[in-house]
């Protein structure tokens, strides 16, 4: 036993013991513990295996920067891979396992790769596995992939809920250490609306891990902030992304710390979208490892983390300790260790002398300080056993047996968010770290995040920044509160030591622990020409693991700068990209799952369709009745019945989904003239016209019927799926190209319900339902609109047809849609009225050769290709017109719309079949494809529409559709299959 729990002290609640399991063993911890601190208190430091060499790894840090202690948390549907034990709050009954170890953490077969690790240097896989070629797919690649990955994805869907919050704040403070709290306090006292977020369960940051300092101030400040109505405190909330315009994203963990005891119905995590007028970044600093042989042995830990475990969790990671540091701060850890009863064997300090206050205190306790020396190697297997200490310049080394080595290579400000906000970093030579330089957004960095490491100075900086931020948003006239009195010890400057000289030959010296990247890997990369930091990262994978290089980036950069003989700032920095720490997928998706992935749009008549057992088709966001099966009918039987009914008697279709745009203004007619291929200026009031729209390249874009309601008022319809696209297109032209035109567009798709009844009996139904409307040919001709009362409802009645049958489309305000539908059903009953869906509608329109945009067209088809020259004005200009003059667009042998009749009338060609003249040709020339194909009950055979190269010149010829397994022959005919009287046109 080496690691253990102190009998008193720390912030854990000894009255609330919790039991948990890790790697199959039972342990006990206390409320207030993290999984990592509880494991340390149980002397279970070994927590995982490394990615490449499967080396045993122990807990290394105490927070978000932890590279090693990744665990598989929980089981079944609640399981979570790669949780960082240093950030997992302990709860009763917690279970966790090591990742990347098989069959067990103690005996891991993957560790055998360590035997040939001499081959596994950076980028080795690019240099081999190429012969024999066939082995790559079958042997090498599968083997490489089997080695990949850390934890496992759950196999079941996530039972948890996730939420989102959108808020504004005057001042957002990221980080609740002394500097952040001070900033929040100053801003809040001035009256600003303040949001302060911290990733930890308890606010206080570094104060929580410091002995005694400022306990009273922390308590008082938190009490004051909690009592202020203009302050929101968000513990367990990570600010993970800083985007343009002071827009930041936060992830709040609401139930993770409760485990199975979480109340049902409470969302697990919440994603906050914050728009802050001012931001204060008080995100602290991460300690840097030192790079020497075996620096990854379990028992080597960051000095600050050792102090945190002792002071905050009363967990002491070792009994016999050595401290190895190049700065004064880490001497605190020697004092903390000594205070906790551990034996501190030495402080190894590569600096020639350490004159500061803290070293003096260490010396006063009788702890040996070895100046000018370094740890060149650490040895041990699953636990550190000894370190080898020697003079920096070379010379005799001595071994010291120990179970804990606390290391500190200095501190790196957490500049991630600053950098994400596009701020430029600056290398501070004196402090050996990157600090925020030129800011790009309304933010201030304070405290350790700004390179201001001393407590008193950090507090003052925080108070100032908070007051200034408040002033910038209009809460001036306040002076920053006085900082509490802190006696910052006098410190000597740190001396950078990026890699212990001479260590290289003594074993692997790790820089990126999680990805197993060593200093020699980095030097090899530099030697091979990967001199840019980004190249280095990619070639060696340094900084690319789940910790995103929080402990390794600066060391890697420094080693690269050494290897390439450039100064550090000239070598570069890496770009910090969101997220700061990984973010749960579920939280980003929020509630936009299942039916809320995309809004479901239904018509006012939907409930009727559902009650009649309609099958639905998704058209854009709409649910449209596809067909209405009766008594065990399959789709084909239903569609035959429906299509037959329309031609022989009466059918009714819910056409409410058609896009509808109200076009109004003195220039409305001129505008329509410009966007449609045909003219609308001369259209009489009360008349309807079918129109085609093209994009500027001359390709068909949408179609629909537009009706003139008044001189300056039109009612446009679009395809169901195209409505939004058309409105955007029209607005773009109005707003960017023709801003002088007085035209106003309003989407009214959802304001009107449309019931379309068609068939020989359609007129009878209208006569019955609208006795006041003259329905005769003369007074209500084809392609006109009348306003009148239908079934007691004020309505617009359009006499238009998409089936070729007499038909009326009646529009009523949406909330009357169902009433109208039911009235039409009742009136039509004696005629055997048949509701029909989109499939029958498609058959009917195809029999008449009417196109569907998106089916007969695919963005490469002009109106002329469709044989619709009649709708293309020769006189006026319109969007797309000029493109018709382009040589390729005016070619005679473009693909043109034709009809197809399969040689075997029973055959229904598959839509999407390719068409060729000569199937034996190789390579075979494809000259077209089938765009629509159906069985027609009215023709008694299969038929199709197709686009065929020069098709109009080939009527009567036979073309072939080579399908998997067979080739189908079909005769090319004009794309219209029924004459005016409803008789088949092509015998």
């Amino acid at each position, binding site marked *: 036993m080496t690691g253990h729990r102190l009998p008193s002290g720390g912030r854990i609640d000894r009255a609330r013991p919790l039991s948990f399991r890790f790697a199959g063993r039972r342990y006990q911890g206390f409320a207030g513990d993290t999984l990592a601190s509880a494991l340390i208190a149980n002397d279970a430091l070994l927590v995982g295996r490394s*990615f490449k060499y499967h080396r045993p790894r122990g807990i290394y840090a105490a927070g978000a920067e932890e590279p090693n202690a990744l665990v598989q948390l929980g089981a079944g549907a609640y399981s*979570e*891979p*790669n949780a960082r034990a240093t950030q997992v709050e302990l709860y009763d009954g917690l279970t966790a396992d090591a990742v990347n170890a098989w069959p067990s953490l103690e005996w891991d077969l993957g560790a055998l790769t360590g035997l040939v690790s*001499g081959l596994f*240097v950076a980028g*080795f896989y*690019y*240099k*081999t596995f*190429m012969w024999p070629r066939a082995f790559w*797919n079958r042997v090498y*690649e599968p083997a490489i992939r089997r080695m*990949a*990955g*850390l934890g496992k*994805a*759950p196999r079941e869907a996530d039972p948890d809920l996730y939420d989102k919050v959108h808020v504004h704040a005057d001042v957002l403070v990221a980080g609740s250490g002394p500097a952040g709290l001070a900033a929040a306090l100053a801003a809040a006292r001035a009256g600003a609306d303040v949001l302060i977020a911290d990733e930890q369960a308890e606010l206080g940051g570094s104060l929580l891990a410091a002995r005694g300092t400022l306990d009273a101030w922390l308590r008082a400040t938190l009490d004051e902030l909690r009592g202020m109505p203009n302050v929101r405190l968000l513990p367990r909330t990570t600010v993970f*992304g800083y*985007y343009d315009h002071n827009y930041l994203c936060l992830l709040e963990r609401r139930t993770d710390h409760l485990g199975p005891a979480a109340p049902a119905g409470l969302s697990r995590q919440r*994603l906050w979208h914050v728009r802050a007028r001012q931001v204060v970044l008080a995100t602290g600093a991460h300690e840097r490892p030192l790079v020497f042989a075996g620096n990854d042995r379990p028992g080597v830990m960051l000095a600050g983390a050792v102090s945190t475990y002792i002071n905050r969790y009363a967990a002491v990671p070792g009994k016999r300790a050595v401290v190895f540091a190049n700065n004064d701060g880490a001497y605190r850890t020697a004092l903390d260790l000594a205070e906790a009863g551990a034996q501190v064997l030495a402080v190894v300090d590569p600096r020639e002398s350490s004159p500061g206050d803290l070293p003096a205190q260490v010396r006063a306790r009788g702890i040996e300080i070895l100046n000018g020396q370094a740890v060149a190697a650490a040895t041990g297997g699953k636990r550190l056993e000894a370190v080898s200490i020697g003079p920096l310049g070379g010379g005799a080394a001595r071994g010291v047996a120990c179970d804990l080595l606390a290391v500190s290579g200095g501190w790196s400000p957490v500049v991630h968010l600053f950098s994400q906000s596009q701020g430029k970093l600056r290398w501070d030579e004196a402090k050996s770290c990157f600090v925020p330089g030129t800011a790009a957004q309304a933010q201030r960095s304070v405290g350790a995040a700004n390179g201001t490491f001393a407590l008193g100075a950090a507090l003052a900086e925080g108070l100032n920044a908070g007051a200034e931020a408040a002033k910038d948003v209009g809460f001036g006239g306040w002076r920053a509160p006085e900082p509490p009195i802190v006696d910052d010890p006098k410190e000597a400057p740190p001396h950078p030591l990026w890699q212990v000289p001479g260590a290289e030959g003594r074993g692997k010296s790790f820089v990126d622990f999680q990805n197993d990247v060593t200093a020699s890997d980095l030097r090899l990369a530099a*030697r*091979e*020409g990967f*001199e*840019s930091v*980004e*190249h280095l990262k*990619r070639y060696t994978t340094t900084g*690319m693991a789940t910790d995103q290089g929080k402990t390794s980036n600066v060391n890697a950069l420094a080693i690269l700068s050494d290897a390439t003989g450039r100064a550090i700032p000239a070598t570069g920095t890496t770009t910090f*990209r969101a*997220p700061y720490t990984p*973010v*749960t*997928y579920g939280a*980003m*998706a*929020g509630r*936009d*799952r299942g*039916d809320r992935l*995309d809004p479901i749009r239904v018509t006012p008549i939907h409930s009727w369709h559902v009650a009649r057992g309609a099958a639905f*088709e*998704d058209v854009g966001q709409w649910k449209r009745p596809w067909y209405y099966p009766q008594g065990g009918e399959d789709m084909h039987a239903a569609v035959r019945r429906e299509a037959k009914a329309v031609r022989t008697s009466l059918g009714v279709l819910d056409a409410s989904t058609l896009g509808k745009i109200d076009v109004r203004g003195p220039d409305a007619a001129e505008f329509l003239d410009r966007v449609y291929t045909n003219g609308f200026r001369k259209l009489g009031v009360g008349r309807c016209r079918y129109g085609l729209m093209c994009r500027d*390249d001359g390709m068909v874009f949408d179609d629909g019927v537009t009706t003139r309601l008044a001189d300056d008022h039109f009612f446009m319809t679009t395809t169901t799926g195209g409505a939004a696209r058309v409105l955007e297109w029209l607005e773009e032209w109005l707003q960017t190209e023709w801003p002088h035109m007085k035209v106003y567009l309003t989407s009214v798709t959802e304001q009107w319900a449309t019931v379309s009844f068609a068939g020989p009996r359609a007129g009878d139904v209208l006569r019955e339902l609208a006795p006041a409307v003259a329905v005769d040919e003369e007074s209500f001709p084809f392609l006109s609109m009348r306003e009148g009362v239908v079934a007691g409802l004020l309505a617009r009645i359009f006499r238009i047809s998409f089936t070729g049958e007499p038909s009326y489309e009646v529009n009523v305000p949406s909330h009357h849609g169902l009433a109208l539908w039911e009235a039409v059903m009742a009136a039509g009953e004696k005629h055997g009225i048949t509701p029909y869906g989109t499939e029958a509608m498609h058959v009917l329109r195809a029999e008449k050769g009417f196109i569907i945009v*998106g*089916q007969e*067209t*695919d*963005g*490469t088809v002009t109106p002329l290709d469709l044989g619709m020259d009649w709708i293309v004005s020769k006189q006026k200009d319109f969007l797309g017109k000029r493109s018709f003059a*382009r040589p*390729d667009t005016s070619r005679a042998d473009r693909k043109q719309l034709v009809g197809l009749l399969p040689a075997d009338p029973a055959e229904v060609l598959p*839509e*999407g079949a*390719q068409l*060729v003249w000569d199937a034996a040709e190789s*390579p075979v020339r*494809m000259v077209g*494809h089938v765009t629509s194909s159906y069985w027609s009950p009215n023709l008694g055979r299969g038929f199709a529409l197709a686009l065929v190269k020069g098709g109009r010149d080939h009527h009567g010829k036979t073309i072939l559709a080579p399908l998997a397994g067979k080739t189908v022959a079909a005769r090319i005919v004009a794309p219209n299959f029924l004459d005016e009287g409803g008789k088949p046109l092509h015998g």
Partner: protein
Amino acid sequence: MQRFSIVSLARNALTGHKDWPRYWRSPKPKAAYDAVIVGGGGHGLATAYYLAKEHGVRNVAVLEKGWLGGGNTGRNTTIVRSNYLWDESAHLYEHSLKLFEGLSQDLNYNVMPSQRGVLNLAHNLGDVREGIRRVNANRLNGVDAEWLTPAQVKAFCPIVSISPSMRYPVMGATLQRRAGVARHDAVAWGFARAADALGVDIIQNCEVMGFDIRQGRVHGLRTTQGEIATTKVGIVAAGHNSVLCDMAGVRLPIQSHPLQALVSEPIKPIHPCVVMSNAVHVYVSQSDKGELVMGAGIDSFNSYAQRGSFPVIEHQMAAVLELFPIFSRLRMMRTWGGIVDVCPDASPIIGRLPVEGLYLNGGWGTGGFKATPGSGHVFAHTIAQEAPHPLAAPFAFERFTSGALIDEHGAAAVAH
């Protein structure tokens, strides 16, 4: 060039890997070159390689304003496939896929192709029609393609949901088995190393600032490392093609947009293939490091900044969880963006520009990684022979005046 092999690896292991040579030199630009390629991405490097290898044009420089491969080449989601609809595209991308299949051996560098199969899911009747049409066209064009029913989709990729209660249920999918992913950086480095070995000067941190154009002919370029004389310039600058062409007085019908991608934390292998969905709009694969790699559509605003907006990521997360509900507790580890140059017809431009000696290979938009070897191959031919390679001819700049567009929008599912 020192050949890479298991033998050379073992030999170097004995000497502590101290003797590996540089992948490429770091030369200063010469005063003049026979040809200069602007843009050290995959396409530019491949162009230089094939110029040197197949056309004997070795006095070539590749000018890269940053570090080679740092543009879209090093930022894409690495999907490689050739199941495009139109003959012109299918032939070009298939040419590239074939080159990919032998690329590791040709370059003596393992680019880690993973032919794990690409599924393009269909979620509505329009998708189904489009998918079947494409499968038929692919087969007749000699490109492997299959149409799968939802049950077959599930068999091929057991973790994808085919539940009928999805917002947009899976109605089928196209499958190209030879398609998959490859290692993007390795493609750039492999081409760079091989081109360097053939004498090509790869000059990094060298930004082209302008052209020397007289009497409608290019005579050289101005760069941050000085002036360089040449009579042939190939512009291969992806998101910045429009900026460079503007310097030469040529206006391109191209819009530059940010396109984002992201990876999860590494997890043990779980995803056997590549799944792409247009209607639910996301695509996902798993890398050989275990990360789930995913992306979706462009950010719709124009930008030259290599970053996008977070809501675009939120949308694609909702989409991915619809298809893969078991991914919900995984975590997004890293996001980034590139700048893609999108043509109106979603097809590239390969060929000469209206300035003599000036050539463009661009407009690859969201889907050019897969074309890297093929694009370089046909572009090198076009520059060296001063006449378009037959596969490149349909993609000439003139198509925007002739109207002979190759519109892969309507048909090509997600364009990656």
